[in-house]
């Protein structure tokens, strides 16, 4: 087991895993990674189960390995380098003892740094995930030394072909209050191009739109009802708010629909200023890909990284063409 020292940690970086199940009745939402597929991708690239990882909002990170380790870079792409050499995104790599990995700040979305053996930070209520809205854990800070779990694997230098960036509308399913909204609003919701507002975090993301606000009759006196990550909540000003993994477990604002869980990671990765659209799909036509299925697919899509010579450190130490001679015949 080894540790990493964070030599530079920008604001809002937290430890995240797949979160906590079984606490909704006590008011604690699942939490966990904003982009679960990024943790699944890291597991595929490191040939291990899903582990706790560092989740980076657009802030920068530098960390030093205090022993040899493997790591994977997934989620929203950043410029990443080790000792001046750029690293492939959606890839697994190695760090030697004393080497430093640096990730530049991003412009939006969440990047993930996962480790062979995973982060071994303390488990609270069954998970290592910080849940800042609930007061569990805190962002990591410059100078923190984080323990890694025992790494039983050896795979590295794998890449995962990034899926084509989908521009299709995010799939919506009915939720608690869908039936309370008049049909013209349900139609308008699906015709509207929304902009991801700068106001947003792991609890939720505000969406803005040109045109009339959305709302239902009597929405200020609705009975509070179960709320879930992915719900599209209509707040007092008539703009939708997409609830994130750290959302409240109940809420009194009406929910016009709920995102398909497979589309929530893409929604959470939408950078400020980008647009998105919403489209209802009939419940009996909605297909479902569970986390186990996604991970199995990703494992099958990983491949050895074909290295660009420019990326190879200390190129002169490699014998590039075996069997090359001086050209003189013996």
């Amino acid at each position: 087991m080894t540790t990493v020292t964070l030599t530079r940690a920008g604001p809002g970086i937290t430890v995240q895993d797949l979160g906590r199940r079984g606490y909704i009745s006590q008011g604690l939402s699942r939490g966990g990674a904003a982009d679960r597929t990024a943790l699944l991708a890291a597991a595929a690239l490191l040939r291990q189960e899903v582990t706790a990882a560092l989740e980076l909002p657009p802030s920068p990170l530098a960390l030093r390995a205090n022993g040899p380790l493997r790591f994977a870079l997934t989620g929203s792409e950043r410029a990443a380098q080790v000792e001046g050499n750029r690293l492939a995104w959606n890839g697994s790599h190695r760090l030697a003892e004393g080497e430093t990995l640096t990730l530049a700040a991003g412009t939006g979305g969440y990047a993930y740094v996962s480790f062979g053996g995973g982060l071994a930070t303390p488990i609270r209520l069954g998970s290592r995930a910080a849940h800042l809205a609930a007061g569990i854990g805190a962002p990591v800070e410059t100078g923190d030394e984080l323990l890694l779990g025992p790494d039983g694997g050896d795979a590295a230098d794998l890449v995962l072909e990034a899926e084509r960036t989908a521009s299709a509308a995010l799939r919506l399913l009915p939720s608690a209050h869908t039936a309370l909204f008049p049909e013209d609003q349900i139609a308008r919701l699906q015709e509207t191009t929304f902009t991801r507002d700068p106001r947003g975090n792991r609890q939720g993301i505000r969406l803005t739109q040109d045109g009339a606000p959305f709302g239902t009759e009597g929405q200020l006196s609705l009975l509070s009802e179960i709320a879930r990550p992915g719900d599209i909540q209509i707040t007092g000003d008539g703009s939708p708010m997409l609830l994130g993994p750290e959302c409240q477990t109940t809420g009194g604002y009406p929910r016009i629909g709920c995102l398909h869980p497979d589309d929530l990671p893409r929604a959470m990765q939408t950078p400020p200023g980008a647009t998105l659209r919403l489209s209802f799909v009939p419940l009996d036509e909605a297909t479902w890909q569970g986390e186990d299925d996604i991970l199995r697919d990703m494992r099958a899509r990983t491949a050895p990284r074909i290295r660009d010579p420019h990326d190879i450190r200390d190129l002169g130490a490699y014998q590039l063409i075996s069997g090359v001679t001086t050209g003189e015949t013996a």
Partner: protein
Amino acid sequence: MQSATDTSDAFPRLTPLGIDGLLVTFADRLDEAANRAALAFRSAVDDEGWEGMIETATSLASTFIAFDPARLNRETLAERLRKLLGTRDWFAADLPTGRRRLTIPVSFEGDHAPQLDEAADLAGLTRAQAIEEICARPVRALALGYAPGQAYLGELDAHWNIDRQRDLTPRVETGALVTAVRQLIVFATTTPTGWRQIGMTRFHGFRPDDPDRPIVLAPGDEVRFTPVSAAELEALCAPEGGVTLEDIA
């Protein structure tokens, strides 16, 4: 799309919450019997232990079931739920056993109660009458939600049916006593809210570092508020906040 939602006015009513959730609703307004029904029905669903269920919960008047659609078909689950609903009158169910009563000191003075006058006015009461009514009898933890360990307490008399504010209060501290829609909440976190702050306690309902009981209240527990001065409150320490506990059932 609308056909996927049961729009009949009859209760109990099944509503899908996304692809992997079902809600069994016993009333669309605050109702003591519906709250008991939701608690009892959740307990019965838990006892069934159907393969593919992930977790269950209750809100004020509903039972929520999260499931894995790969292992449990929604229509199959809905059919089982309807059958279970038909086995008895859930509105006549008893409250769960193992319940406790907490007596929580609360200050209604000064900065501790910035919106008490406004809330009392909306309820048609004087400030003194409002305090007296809030402390007159125990209220029940109807559901836990919004934040961990945070209980929706009720219900208050009908004149306390105050709407939430249209604009959120940007920040209310942990321990704040707030009200809306015939209910009281002692906030378990520091958060923005549409509810009006009418008092302050030192009780913290969520203690993530307590391995034995991180969440103090359970649905069905009772809370009684007892007024103290601002100075007396300042002398109390979180997370206990001077709370006394007794078993009631």
